[in-house]
Each structure stands twice: as C-alpha cells, then as structure tokens.
C-alpha cells in the first residue's frame, strides 16, 4: 500500500478503518442473503421430502414398476379323432407404434429396405390402422426370417417406435374346408372393446390383441381365450424391463373337442365338387354335428392379422359368395325333401291312410290354375309309398290342399322348420315356415288358399337352412326325439387335465305314432332302393333312407316348360338330398344342397352316397374326376 506521501496519517487510518467497517457491513448483508437463500433451499427440500413425500414416492414407484399383462395361449380346436383344426405357433413380427411416428409411409419405405414388405402387407397395415385407431402396436410384417431379424436388429436404433416381438399366431391348417364352422379370430375392434367393457371382461383382454370373430372361435370365446396373467416388471427410463418383481402366470384357454369328423367334412367338401353348396350331417342319437360344410370356403388365415383390401374385395364381391355360411344362413326351398314330413302330417291329422290312393294325371287343378307334376303325364295310381319313392307332386298338391296351411305350419314347426336350432354357432337364420299369421305379419296381406298347394311340394314361401333340413331328418330318423345340434362335444381344461362333456340336450319329443313313422321311413328306404336315388345308391353295403329334392330358383310361367340349358346357371334349380343310415339304427342323418345343379337325384344324392360310404364303411372316394359331362370343357 502506498501511504508514503500522506499528509495526515490519522485521517488515512480512520479512512481505512471506516472502509473496513463499510466492507464488513456489506459482508454481513451478503451473509444474510446467503442464509436466506439456503433457508429457501432447505424449505423447498423439506416441502418435497416431507410434505410431498407420499405423492412423489408413489410417482417414483409408478416410474419403475410396470404392470405387464401376459396373454394366455388360446385353446386348441380338434375334431373327434384329435385332428387339429386351429392351433397356435410362435413367430416374430415387426410392429409399429403409429402414435409415435410422424410419417408412417416414409418409415415403412425405410423399413422395407431391410425387411421385405409386400404391397399386401402395406394394404393390410393401412386397413388395420383405419380400424383400430388405438395407441397400441400394429404388426407391419409377420413371420420374419432369422436373417431379417438380424438385419433389422442391427439398424434398430434408426427406428424408434418399431420393434420386433415374438407373438403367438393362430393357424388353421385346413382353413378353407372348415372356414364356416371353426371360423377365425381377428384383431379386437372398437365395438368389441365396448362389449368387453360392458361385460366386465376387459381386464382379461389387456394383453390380448385377438378375439374370436366367427364360428366356434366366436361362440366359445370365453373358453378358448384363457386367463391373462400379470407380471410386475421393474423398468428403466427407456421402458426396458430390468427384472421381474412378481408374476401371476397366464392360464391357457380350454381346448375344444368336436363331434365333427374332419375327414368326413373333407370328403363332403370335395364331393360337392366345383359347385356351391352345403352339407350338414348330424348324429341323430345325440345331436352331435358330424359335418358342417359350406362351399366355397375361403382361407380364414387371411383374416387373422387383418385382411388386406384386395383379398377382401375379391372374397366379398365373388359371385360364389364364399363368405356366406350357407349351412347356417343360406335359406332354400326344401323342394321334395318336404314330402316325407307332409306324408307324416297327412297320417297324423287323419287326412290320408298309407293305402289310400289318388290318380295322378300329371297335374292338379285348383281355382282354374294348373299345378304341374314334374313328370309329364303323371305317375298314374299313387299311394303314400309310391308318392315318396317316385316323388309325385300331384299327391302332395292334393294333400296340402286337404290339410290347409295352418295345420301344415303347426306340424312342421315340431321338426324345427322355421325356427333356430340353437346350434353352437352364432347368427343362425330362422328360415321361413309360412302360415296365415306369418303372411299377415310379413306382407300384411291375407293368405290365398292357392298358395297352400305348392307349399305341399316344398316350394312357395318355404325357405330353410341346410342345418334345419338336417335337424329335421335327424329328428325323423330318431323317431321324433330331437336333440339340439352341437358341434363341440368336450371342453378340455388342459391344466386340470379335465374333460367336460357337453351333454346332449333333448330339444323336444314329437308325439308321432310308431306305425305312421314306420310307413314313412319304409318309403324313404324305398327311395334309395328303387326310387329317385336308386341309381346313386346302387350296390351300397348298408341300407339307407333318403329323399331327393329340387328347389326352384325361378318361377316357371303357366304353360311354359323349364328347360335347364336355357336358364342362366345361377338361376337353375338347386339339387337337394336328405338321408340317414343305416336305416334300422341310424348313426348319421344329413341334408345336402348343391346349388344350381338341377334334380336332386343327379347332384345331391351322389354327394350323400360318398359321405355315407365314408362314414359307415371308411371308404375314401377316388379323387374327383376333372372332366364331367356338364363341364366338358374342363378347368
């Protein structure tokens, strides 16, 4: 310090002391400030660690613990012989979290440089995106190869929001043949989420992306799905699991064992050939459904991950309507297959005796209107046996007229015509069993007596599903004891090693006289032996009972003749056959319809023969011949 030249050292010292004093005042102020700021920090820390501790502790726990649902394995579906119709396999998928990605299209383009993404994958993804709108993950590619997994994994850092996951997939090994009975699963949509919420089941679907959509997959959803497990996982800030804290394992869904015979189903499906049609076979003694065919089928595997628009349009717009479950929802006039029941009604109501005959000139006149017999010139003198065996129309025109529409309706209702059978698939159609009341309700008009006449030969307003036709013939075969048709026979609890039998349910017992039944059943045996289907059943090693039928698709005007070759194929008559065998102790009853194939004897009866041969004798039909008379050009 330079104080050499100071004039008054006293002032200098006092100044210096004053200065130090000022400095210390400032320092004290600074110390006060420091203290105040530290108190502020301490206050905030106390606030966080004492007052807000509970809340923040919970937040920290929520940060670290993630509840991860563990999706259960879906139950398997197997036929009566253990042939698997629906199972699961594990595969790697490439999944995208759409809400985390700004430009999906360019992302997919980029991903496509590493992993093959077909136009079909893109279309399917787009459709899924429109349908779900949820914040979950959506698959863009399934069944990645090991090489693709390795390639993507190396570039994973470039794609936040895209991940590879191992998933269980549903597969239907024989998807096309069983498409309408086994059905399929699909991704859960918004409507189903709401339904699950309403049923209080949503919690069990936390880890599930799929739900049964159609067929058995839908009907038995609550057995097949299983119970979702829960894993408490500690995760880091990136959401990556660090370790499992606790877990409740998922419980696999129950397996379904069917009455259905897969090989029988396949035989029936193939027997229908290139045509459209349906076949339902039932064990009359239990109601167990042995075959449930709707042709054409479609590959249900397309639907599992969401179908793409091209395939969807192709299926949906196909003139063959493969998506329609014909066995359940196709309704057809029963044609002459209605006659045995008409004969029973005639006996039950005392309008006919077995021996009583009529003269069949080839037509029946009513109210100045001629109802033609399918055989020009008629069958001559006809009793009940001959009316069924030769399928006389005139006999049943008369009988219908004598019974009247309401008696017919009352009697037929007992066989289940016009009402749902209660089979274990949802969405069954009821068909139409016409009556005066029905017409008033449906068209708000009166029933004309003339309309009763063609009801007698199974035409007119009559309209039933193949399932109803099969149920009716099964009831007849079982002497009037009707069982509710069932596709599933057992539900297996895989874990408990338990099999729960689905008991046959007796739907109703018809009040039919033994001797009446004997007359009609004898005539049905006659049909296959010497009647309209004798050619198809020539040389059969068992005695079968059956009835042919032909269902008109278009009405033929008065005085006109139906000439098959002149009618557009889609408007030609349907070919029907109902049967059961063996006649003395029926093990199988069936109804088959082949669309636009003409007389029942020609197309439907041979299908029935093949099915019965297989079921009763184990005879596998030779492969279909490709060249047939009516498709001479071949395919």
């Amino acid at each position: 310090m330079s104080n050499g030249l100071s004039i008054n050292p006293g002032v200098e010292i006092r100044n210096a002391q004053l200065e130090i004093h000022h400095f210390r005042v400032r320092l004290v102020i600074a110390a006060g400030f420091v203290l105040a700021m530290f108190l502020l920090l301490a206050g905030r820390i106390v606030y966080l660690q004492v007052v807000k501790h509970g809340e923040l502790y919970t937040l920290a726990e929520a940060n670290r613990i993630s509840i991860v649902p563990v999706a259960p394995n879906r139950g398997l579906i197997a036929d009566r012989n253990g042939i698997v119709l629906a199972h699961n396999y594990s595969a790697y998928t490439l999944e995208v979290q759409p809400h985390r990605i700004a430009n999906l299209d360019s992302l997919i383009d980029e991903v496509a440089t590493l992993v093959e993404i077909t136009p079909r994958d893109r279309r399917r993804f787009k459709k899924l995106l429109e349908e779900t709108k949820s914040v979950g993950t959506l698959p863009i590619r399934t069944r990645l190869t090991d090489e693709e997994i390795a390639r993507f994994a190396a570039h994973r850092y470039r794609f936040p929001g895209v991940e590879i996951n191992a998933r269980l997939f549903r597969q239907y090994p024989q998807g096309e043949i069983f498409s309408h009975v086994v059905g399929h699963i699909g991704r859960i949509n918004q409507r189903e989420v709401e339904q699950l919420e309403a049923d209080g089941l949503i919690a069990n679907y936390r880890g599930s992306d799929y739900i049964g959509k159609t067929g058995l997959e839908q009907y038995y959803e609550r057995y097949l799905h299983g119970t979702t497990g829960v894993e408490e996982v500690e995760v880091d800030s990136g959401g990556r699991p660090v370790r499992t804290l606790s877990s409740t394992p998922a419980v696999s869904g129950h397996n379904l064992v069917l009455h259905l015979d897969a090989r029988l189903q396949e035989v029936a499906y193939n027997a229908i050939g290139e045509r459209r049609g349906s076949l339902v076979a039932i064990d009359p003694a239990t109601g167990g459904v042995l075959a449930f065919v709707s042709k054409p089928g479609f590959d249900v595997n397309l639907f599992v991950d969401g179908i793409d628009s091209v395939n969807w349009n192709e299926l949906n717009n196909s003139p063959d309507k493969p998506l329609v479950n014909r066995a359940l929802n196709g309704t057809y006039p029963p044609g002459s297959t209605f006659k045995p029941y008409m004969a029973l009604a005639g006996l039950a109501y005392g309008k006919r005796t077995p021996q009583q005959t009529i003269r069949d000139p080839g037509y029946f006149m009513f109210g100045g209107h001629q109802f033609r017999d399918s055989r020009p010139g008629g069958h001559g003198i006809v009793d009940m046996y001959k009316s069924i065996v030769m399928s006389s129309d005139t006999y049943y025109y008369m009988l219908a007229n004598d019974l009247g529409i309401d008696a017919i309706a009352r009697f037929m209702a007992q066989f289940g015509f016009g009402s749902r059978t209660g089979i274990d698939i949802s969405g069954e159609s009821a068909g139409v069993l016409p009556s005066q009341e029905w017409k008033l309700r449906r068209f708000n008009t009166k029933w004309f007596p003339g309309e009763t006449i063609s009801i007698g030969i199974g035409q007119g307003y009559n309209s039933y599903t193949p399932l109803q036709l099969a149920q009716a013939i099964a009831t007849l075969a079982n002497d009037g004891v009707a069982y509710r048709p069932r596709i599933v026979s057992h539900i297996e609890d895989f874990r408990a090693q338990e099999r729960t039998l689905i008991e046959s349910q007796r739907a109703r017992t018809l009040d039919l006289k033994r001797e009446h039944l004997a007359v009609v059943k004898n005539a049905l045996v006659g049909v296959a032996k010497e009647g309209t289907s004798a050619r198809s059943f020539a040389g059969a090693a068992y005695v079968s009972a059956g009835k042919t039928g032909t269902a008109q698709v278009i009405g033929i005007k008065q005085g006109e003749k139906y000439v098959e070759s002149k009618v557009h194929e889609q408007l030609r008559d349907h070919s029907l056959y109902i049967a059961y065998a063996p006649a003395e102790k029926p093990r199988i009853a069936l109804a088959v319809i082949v669309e636009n194939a003409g007389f029942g004897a020609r197309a439907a009866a041979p299908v029935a023969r093949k099915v019965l041969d297989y079921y009763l004798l184990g005879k596998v039909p030779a492969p279909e011949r490709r060249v047939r008379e009516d498709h001479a050009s071949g395919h």
Partner: protein
Amino acid sequence: MHPAIRQIEHYLTRHLDGVLLGLVVALMTLGLAVLISASNLSPMRITGQLINMLFALGLLWVFANIPPHFLSRLALPLYCLGVLLLVAVAVGGDKIQGARRWLDLGITRIQPSELMKIAVPLAMAWYFDRHEAALRLRHYVVATFILVVPIALIVKQPDLGTAVLITAAGFFVLFLAGLHWRIIAGLAALVIGSLPFVWGALHDYQRQRILMLLDPSQDPLGAGYHTIQSTIAVGSGGWLGKGWLSGTQTHLDFIPERTTDFVFAVFGEEFGLLGCVVLLGLFLSVISRGMLITANAPTMFTRLLAGAITLTFFTYAFVNIGMVIGILPVVGVPLPLISYGGTSLASICIGIGILMSIHSHKKLVQT
C-alpha cells in the same frame, strides 16, 4: 518426531487451513460416495474422479502457497490471456453439442470460460485495489466493463451456467467494493427493464428451460422431463432416503446427467432429508469459513478476491440445488466438490487454495 520431519511437515502444511481442508475432504468423500451409486459402480468414473480429486487437492496446495501479492501481479495478464482465448474460441473453437466452448491446443483441449471464473474476480479485485484511495463512479464503470466483455463472449458460446457464475462473482466484487445502493437499485431496474431484450437474445432451448420452470408438467417428456424426474427423486427420498445404492430413480436411469449436474437428485433420493441437511450444513460451513477469512483479509485486493470466491462457491451450490429441486431454471452449473468432472473440481479447489493463502499470508503482510 525427528526435527527434520517436523520441518518438512511444517513446510507442507503452514499455508493450509485445517477447517477448510477438513470441510473440502468431507465434501469430496460424500461426492465420491454419491458417484459410486450414481455411476452404477463404474470403476472408470470412480477412479477417474479420485484422480481428479487428488489433482485438485494438489492445485489447492499450490495456490495456498502462492502469496496474494504475487496473484495480484498475475491478475491483468491472466485476464487478457482469458479474453484472447475466448475470442479464439468464438472464431475457431470446437463445436460440441451445438456449443462452441472448447479450444483445441493440439495437446489438449481447454475451456477458456473456466479460467475466467477466477480471472475475472481477480482482475476486478486488482483494479479496485489499484484505485483504493479514491474510488469514483468511473472506476465502477471500468470494473463493470472488465466484467461484461468476457460474459458477452461466454453467453455467445453459449454457456449460460458459466456466464451466470461469472456474473455473480463480478457482481459480488462490485457490491463488496462498495457500489452505491442507488446504483445497485438502478442496475436492478435496468436488469428488469432489459429482460424482454434478454429474452429475445436467448436460444430456444434456453427459453424452454425457463418456461419449464414455471410449469414442468407442460412438456413432461421434453424440456420439463429433467426437472420432473429430479424433484420426484428428491421427494421420494423422504426423511432418511432410500439408502445408498438403492435409489430407484437413480439406478433405473430416470435422472438425467446424474453424475454431473443432477447429482443432488441422487443424493436427495438415497440420503433423504437428513443427508440434505448435512450437505447444506457442510456448504454453509465452507461459506462461513470463507466469510470469516474475507472479513479478516488485510488488503482490499484480498478482501474482494476472498469475498468473490466465497460467494461464487455459494452461487454454485445455490444455483445447482435450486435447479435440481425445481426453483431455478436448468443451467449447466455443477454441485461444488460433489459433481463428477475435473474442471469444476480444479477451479473450486483453486479458489479454496486462494482463500487459504489469503488467510495464511495475512500475518506475513501485517508484520
């Protein structure tokens, strides 16, 4: 004990302050303990920090042994060198994460702004000391100029944390040098008045950080994420903490920068309120000791320098903890003696070394 050994011991320790050294070692020990947990027992980080600490203690010893008058002679050259380096950085520095802070010297890279943490208060103290006899307004203006030039260069880099620390240090020098209250009030008014302009000059991410302070939940996964997760960590610690190595926020990676700027969140989570009170007590003790040394410093130069160092140390602690517990915006200021990183350890220890030197050389000056 042999007299020669006693001689050596005396030579080694004569300029060290036992109280400060004890506090520094205690804080470093705590820092090492937290680092072991925060780094997930990373041997590299732990040994690295141990070496940093030994090196910093070495610097502390060296600066404790440099007499203050020698430092005052270094003040101007050091300051000029610092400004030159800052200019060099602005012209040709290495850009890391969008900020131009580093200067590549070929052998090593240095961060000149770190040097200015000491050089600026040193130069200002030296300047006031030169004009001690008759301080006029213009001296304060010149001192302010000494302060503003490097700050402008540092804000430009941008390095808001360092700029805040140097501004605080400079302001403390002005304040302790007796800046008139009216001018302080005027400056305060000026600062408040210029806020809109400062706002306009800030980088987007800097504005985000300030906005997030007002409402961190506004952008929980973006700018508010750091603050939310660090307050959760501190608050979830409770009275006694979750225990060393047991902080879930820490070990599951929810705390960002947990070994460096956000290390206090780890500390709060694992050691709880008890630990926090101990830590704040240690910091307060260092500051108190520093103030005592400041109060007894013999010259204006040493008084201002000691005061600035002490209050800068306070600023470090306050800004860092305030940011972690969500009462200050997120700026890159380390927790003194605790955060991982050699540079801040070195500059803090140099400061404490100077404090010790001022304390121990006092008698020499007076005699």
